[in-house]
């Protein structure tokens, strides 16, 4: 938050088939459909999120991540960060208000890792779904599937991690909460946060730029993660691994794939981070345990199945 960047705001995901994608993200994950636009995009969110949308689906002939956006505190901050990004050496593109429905002007830039990111200051506030603004109940009735509460973070694969870290910490004000170092001290994984969360975005070194590993959604309890696993079996959804725990962040998790091959995670719990706290470090000789705390072994699919 040091530079006025608040939190993850939205991701735009490419899917091969919108109908099947909605069965997955709405009926199985339990995201709420909030709107559609004349480009055929569908706008979704988790029920606890107060802004109008956090996941935008776009049908395309290649799945993957179009961009991830962070909300900033106000328009003046957006102007200042534009200049800072240009000074850092990023090409910054301006996208007018309304290009995404009910979202203010956005600026878009590419990180050295090859991923596109956006910043924006304004989005329509619709409140938590299904709850009154005043005297809200504990949760709304009528939630579907896993009842995902919010879009939480994304893990991205790409190269140029040192320059990407500089961009996120020095320009955007993220803290390095957790990392993985190899014996030479090279950072092969960096988990970055704007808040008390263990990560708002994370990067793992990979020779190809701009790849998506997963988009993650938050659940409240380990019971909810187990129930999500049951639903994955009931619906014959493509599973990756879990339920298990991560060493990194110590989150309790399950990974699975959407019908276009984009990986999703639902998770609960995990470490917290304040900006004054030291970075938590794992070493590559313990990488299996860092990723899958119980199996203590990496599987090839986790490292290579990307979109």
């Amino acid at each position, binding site marked *: 938050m040091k530079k006025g960047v608040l939190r993850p705001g939205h991701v735009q995901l490419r899917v091969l*088939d919108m109908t099947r994608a909605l069965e997955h993200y709405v009926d199985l994950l339990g995201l709420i459909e909030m709107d559609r636009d004349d480009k055929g995009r569908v706008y979704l969110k988790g029920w606890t999120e107060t802004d109008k949308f956090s996941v935008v689906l776009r049908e395309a*002939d290649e*799945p993957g991540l*179009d961009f991830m956006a962070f909300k900033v505190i106000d328009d003046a901050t957006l*102007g200042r960060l534009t200049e800072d990004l240009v000074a850092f050496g990023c090409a*910054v593109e301006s996208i*007018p208000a309304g290009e995404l429905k009910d979202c203010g002007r956005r600026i878009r830039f590419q990180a050295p890792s090859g991923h596109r990111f956006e910043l924006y200051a304004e989005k329509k506030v619709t409140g938590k779904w299904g709850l009154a603004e005043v005297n809200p109940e504990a949760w709304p009735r009528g939630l579907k599937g896993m009842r995902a509460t919010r879009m939480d973070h994304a893990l991205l694969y790409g190269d140029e991690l040192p320059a990407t870290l500089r961009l996120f910490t020095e320009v955007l004000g993220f803290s390095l909460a957790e990392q993985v170092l190899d014996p030479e001290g090279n950072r092969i994984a960096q988990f970055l946060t704007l808040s008390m969360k263990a990560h708002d975005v994370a990067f793992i070194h990979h020779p190809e730029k701009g790849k998506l590993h997963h988009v993650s959604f938050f659940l409240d309890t380990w019971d909810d993660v187990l129930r999500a696993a049951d639903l994955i079996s009931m619906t014959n959804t493509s599973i990756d691994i879990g339920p298990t725990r991560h060493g990194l962040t110590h989150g309790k998790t399950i990974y699975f794939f959407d019908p276009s091959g*984009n*990986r999703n995670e639902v998770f609960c719990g995990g470490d917290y981070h304040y900006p004054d706290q030291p970075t938590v470090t794992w070493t590559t000789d313990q990488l299996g345990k860092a990723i899958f705390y119980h199996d203590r072994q990496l599987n090839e699919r986790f490292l290579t199945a990307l979109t």
Partner: protein
Amino acid sequence: MGQRYRITETASGASFFCEEGQSVLQAMESQHLGCVKVGCRGGGCGLCRVQVHSGRYECGRMSIRHINAQARELGQALACRLLPHSDLAIEFLGLADSQEPAPAPVSPVMTQQQRQEVSK
């Protein structure tokens, strides 16, 4: 039960049955074989890419990054999206270097001048 076809993976010599309407990868996994790598099972990651040497089939939607028009023409497919209509001989290829450049920009790119105006 519907039609069943015999799928043979030529590099390993493994063979297994696949039912009409079932994907080759799904059939292989259900028979506990590993002659084709399993990734996302959704046509997105390209890990299960195969060459079809013989037989009739159709394909569900596949990422153009892994199977472009030319590859499709040459009989390549993603096994998780490969639906046989006859016995098939396939050969495992796996993940290739990208066939397509990164996707087109997701919104109109502005001119330098527009860009400067907006950032003011």
